């Protein structure tokens, strides 16, 4: 099983953080735990550069620059865009520091030399004392996961909200991607997922489509200040089958047919997702001709007992390495 995820962005707003889960069949998948980047090398972040202002910018200029960038990158305006969320997180963080005179002073003073332990301690102490003061921010309630390691190292973690109002927020929505193969998507089956330490058993209905998303209510991030929990959205990535293609509820496959069966007719066996099927081949079947097997296609999503159709295209295989006798027979045939 392979698992990867990126940091949450803006929890507390309905916006989500994105989890990519690559699941190898029949194993329960897990996504939990904290920031995997925590032990990474912490880099200095130039907040002035992020807001596109110079170091002498006035509070009004900071506010103006922030508003402009926030309107451009707010995650609500960029659904399902991870980059927009990352950009917005940086902008928010820059504003959190630069719009607060105390934080800005410390940042200006120690910014590039933030590794000095004494300053860290002072900064953390300051953070604890000032947790009730807020700079203006568009993020709504936030958790520590919203801020960079640089910010957390310097200021001891995030404040728990950018807005001055004490507001109940719905928890963040989680987005996960689940990889299935076509055979798995063909049958209704159950999967056990572990989300933030809680096991959820979900039923994946047969007929789920590639790219389709299902919502599992109340299994996202916890609500903030007593708000309702967010939802878990699972997007399905259904891999192609080596022999069978799918379009909606219909399946398409190609069956090899030897020349003699194509000419004289007969019977062949083809593989479907539901097992092997015997087909009667009409005499004088043409190469590329197509037949429809009604009800042998993909199950219709959430319509038990209903199936699409299976289309079989015949590919006639011309015999090779003919013996002299066979060549003579074909010659006779061509003259008849």
């Amino acid at each position: 099983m392979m698992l990867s995820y990126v940091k949450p962005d803006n929890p507390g707003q309905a916006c989500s953080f994105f989890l990519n889960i690559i699941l190898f069949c029949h194993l329960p998948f897990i996504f939990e735990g904290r920031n995997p980047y925590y032990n990474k090398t912490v880099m200095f972040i130039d907040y002035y550069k992020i807001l596109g202002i110079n170091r002498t910018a006035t509070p009004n200029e900071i506010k103006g620059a922030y508003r402009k960038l926030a309107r451009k990158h707010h995650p609500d305006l960029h659904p399902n865009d991870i980059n927009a969320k990352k950009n917005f997180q940086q902008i928010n963080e820059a504003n959190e520091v630069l719009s607060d005179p105390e934080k800005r002073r410390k940042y200006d003073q120690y910014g590039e030399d933030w590794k000095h332990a004494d300053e860290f301690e002072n900064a953390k102490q300051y953070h604890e004392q000032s947790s009730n003061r807020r700079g203006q921010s568009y993020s709504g309630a936030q958790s520590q996961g919203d801020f960079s390691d640089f910010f957390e190292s310097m200021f001891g973690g995030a404040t728990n909200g950018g807005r001055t109002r004490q507001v109940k927020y719905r928890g963040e929505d989680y987005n996960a991607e689940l990889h299935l193969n076509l055979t798995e998507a063909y049958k209704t089956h159950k999967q056990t997922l572990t989300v933030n330490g809680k096991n959820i058993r979900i039923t994946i209905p047969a007929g789920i489509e590639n790219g389709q998303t299902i919502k599992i209510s109340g299994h996202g991030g916890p609500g903030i200040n007593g708000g309702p929990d967010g939802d878990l959205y699972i997007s399905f990535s259904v891999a192609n089958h080596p022999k069978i293609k799918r379009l909606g509820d219909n399946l398409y496959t190609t069956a090899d047919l030897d020349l003699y069966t194509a000419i004289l007719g007969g019977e062949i066996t083809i593989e479907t997702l539901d097992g092997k099927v015997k087909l009667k081949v009409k005499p004088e079947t043409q190469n590329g001709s197509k037949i429809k097997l009604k009800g042998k296609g993909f199950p219709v999503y959430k319509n038990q007992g209903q199936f699409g159709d299976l289309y079989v295209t015949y590919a006639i295989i011309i015999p090779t390495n003919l013996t002299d006798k066979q060549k003579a027979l074909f010659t006779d045939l061509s003259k008849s």
Partner: protein
Amino acid sequence: MQSEYLIAVEEFCSIHNVDISFIRSLKQTGLIEVTTIKEAGFINAAQLQQLEKFIRFYYELDINLEGIETITHLLQRISYMQEEIRMLKNRLRLYETNE
């Protein structure tokens, strides 16, 4: 029969610290639906996420109601187009060759 979860407009406004006139304006523009029961307004819980988004647009991004309406239409279009892309990608998979 499916039950509907309704939240009283007054309670919602008090929790979110928003003006009740904002909810009325959203209702007038057709952006949300408010159910009236015995003269009290209620919001369906299914609209909560959308409503919170409108609050962020209005109070945090300083976008007025006309702007919110425009953005909502555009976001809907993005959503339809994303769905169309998904369907087209699935159609394209018919012609992809497998290794």
